[in-house]
């Protein structure tokens, strides 16, 4: 037996051990027999975990997963890359490693969804008919909503953006280091739209402040957070706590100022306010583009047409069952859902359980049984070494899941969870184990 074979044996043994430990939970899930064809649009965290859950719950069904990306990005780790703690490689894995067995993976993105004809057309022109559809496309960063800004500008002229991907997150750290070195004006922004990991802009504000203090450069740098909204976080108790911590740390906040333009060569940010446009010079600016549904959903009959979420074209699902409001054979999972809160991996985990179980029930000829309560989680990093483990539901109620954890108190334990435990929890979710 050569070394490679031995490594393979070891890995198989560990996989077997892990699988055995989980047999108890797997055994409790009754399988539904079906020959239905289920198409899952999107192969991110939501799409892959839904595929794994449906594979486990449905016997005989054909499951097709659509998604062109060859690499899987562990997005919750991007703030740690932007904090200079992780390397970009630590958040990237080959996509093939996480695609469940027994699933047909079509490495193309969906270009069009026709829910009346029950058909998805891929970017390559392939047409796929379905019996049931799971929409898990994720969301789209609307870089074009900020005049003079594009993703290629991240990492130059003092511009950072943690949402741009692993390399952009690293470039954001480099831009932060420049302002730490030179001092000056640091502007951090928050758009008016729903956004994924809504805590990330706040975390990076805390991190920048801590970095400046650790390097003895805080006094020569003014840090200000510009929110498009009258708050910095949608949950009132969390909003108050963050503002309290920022007051203590001399971080200024300006409300109802929306970033609408950048003049990178002059290093000037343009904000829209009630009084009109305002220019602000900066040394470092953290840009958070508005977010919206990808055009494949936004321009389809699946999008919300009325109310506050219509502008983004989010998926029109029932917030409890996660079933589409008009098309009964369509379910949604992840960031694309037009639900009141929650565009995080934690939401994908909890809502995926509900969506998969409800879809299996519908396939079995029953009504959806489970209701999603809007659970989401945000480990709010407040410095290098401390965080607050904030969990809440649709109503903004704090719902701590770990005994002893006080959501609004900074702790090293919460930092440990963010730094070490969320990644395995995330990959366990992709496998459908949790």
């Amino acid at each position, binding site marked *: 037996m050569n070394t490679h074979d031995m490594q393979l044996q070891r890995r198989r043994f560990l996989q077997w051990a892990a699988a055995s430990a989980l047999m108890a*939970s797997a055994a409790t899930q009754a399988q539904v027999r079906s020959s239905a064809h289920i198409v899952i649009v999107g192969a991110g965290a939501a799409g892959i975990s839904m595929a794994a859950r449906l594979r486990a719950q449905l016997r005989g069904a054909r499951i097709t997963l659509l998604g062109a990306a060859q690499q899987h990005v562990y997005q919750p780790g991007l703030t740690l890359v932007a904090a200079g703690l992780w390397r970009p490689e630590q958040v990237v894995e080959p996509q093939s490693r996480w695609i469940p067995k027994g699933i047909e993976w079509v490495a193309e993105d969906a270009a069009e969804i026709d829910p009346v004809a029950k058909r998805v057309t891929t970017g390559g022109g392939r047409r796929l008919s379905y019996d049931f559809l799971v929409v898990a496309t994720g969301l789209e960063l609307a870089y074009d909503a900020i005049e003079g800004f594009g993703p290629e500008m991240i990492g130059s002229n003092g511009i950072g953006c943690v949402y741009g991907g692993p390399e952009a997150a690293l470039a954001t750290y480099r831009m932060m280091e420049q302002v730490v070195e030179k001092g000056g004006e640091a502007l951090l922004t928050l758009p008016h739209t729903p956004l994924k990991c809504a805590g990330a802009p706040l975390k990076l504000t805390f991190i920048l402040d801590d970095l400046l203090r650790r390097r003895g450069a805080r006094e020569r740098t003014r840090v200000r957070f510009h929110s498009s909204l009258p708050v910095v976080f949608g949950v009132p108790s969390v909003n108050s706590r963050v503002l309290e911590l920022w007051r203590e740390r001399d971080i200024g906040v300006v409300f109802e100022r929306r970033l609408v333009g950048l003049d990178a060569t002059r290093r000037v940010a343009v904000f829209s306010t009630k009084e009109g446009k305002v220019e602000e010079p900066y040394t470092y600016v953290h840009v958070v583009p508005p977010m919206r549904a990808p055009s494949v959903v936004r321009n389809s009959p699946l999008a919300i047409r009325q109310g506050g979420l219509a502008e983004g074209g989010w998926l029109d699902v029932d917030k409890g069952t996660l079933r589409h409001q008009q098309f009964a054979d369509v379910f949604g999972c992840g960031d694309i859902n037009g639900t009141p809160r929650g565009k995080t991996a934690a939401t994908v985990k909890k809502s995926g359980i509900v969506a998969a179980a409800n879809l299996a029930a519908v396939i079995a000829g029953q009504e959806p049984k489970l209701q999603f309560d809007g659970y989401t989680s945000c480990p709010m990093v407040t*410095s290098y*070494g*401390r965080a607050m483990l904030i969990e809440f539901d649709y109503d903004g109620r704090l719902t701590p899941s770990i005994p002893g954890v006080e959501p609004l108190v*900074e702790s*090293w334990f919460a930092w440990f969870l963010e730094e070490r435990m969320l990644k395995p929890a995330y990959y366990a979710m992709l496998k459908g184990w*949790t």
Partner: protein
Amino acid sequence: MEALTDHLAVVAMTLLLEWPLALAVVAVPLFVLLVQIRTGGWTQRRRLNAARWGFVAGVAAGVPLAFAFVGGGVGDLNYWLDWVFLTIIGLAAGGYVALLAYLLAGRRDPAAAQPV
């Protein structure tokens, strides 16, 4: 039950992602035990003393290693749960090094070797 399976799944995935480290943590004491069985040296007092000092060394090394591994420092301990958690880490590190020291201590007394 759901919380338990959740935690089990996370532990299982941690082991899969960090399998070389997990394997080393389990394999080292087993290897030492195997060597001890072959070489003998069952001097109880020496071993207990070694275990005591090993425990102290393990606690002393475990705490800074935890900070080096996870980030942060003593100044970041802000809540009672932090202290409980750090105590658990320290005790676990102490126990592990004590076990290694206990197993290793016998090797220095070949006269006490017994055939297996």
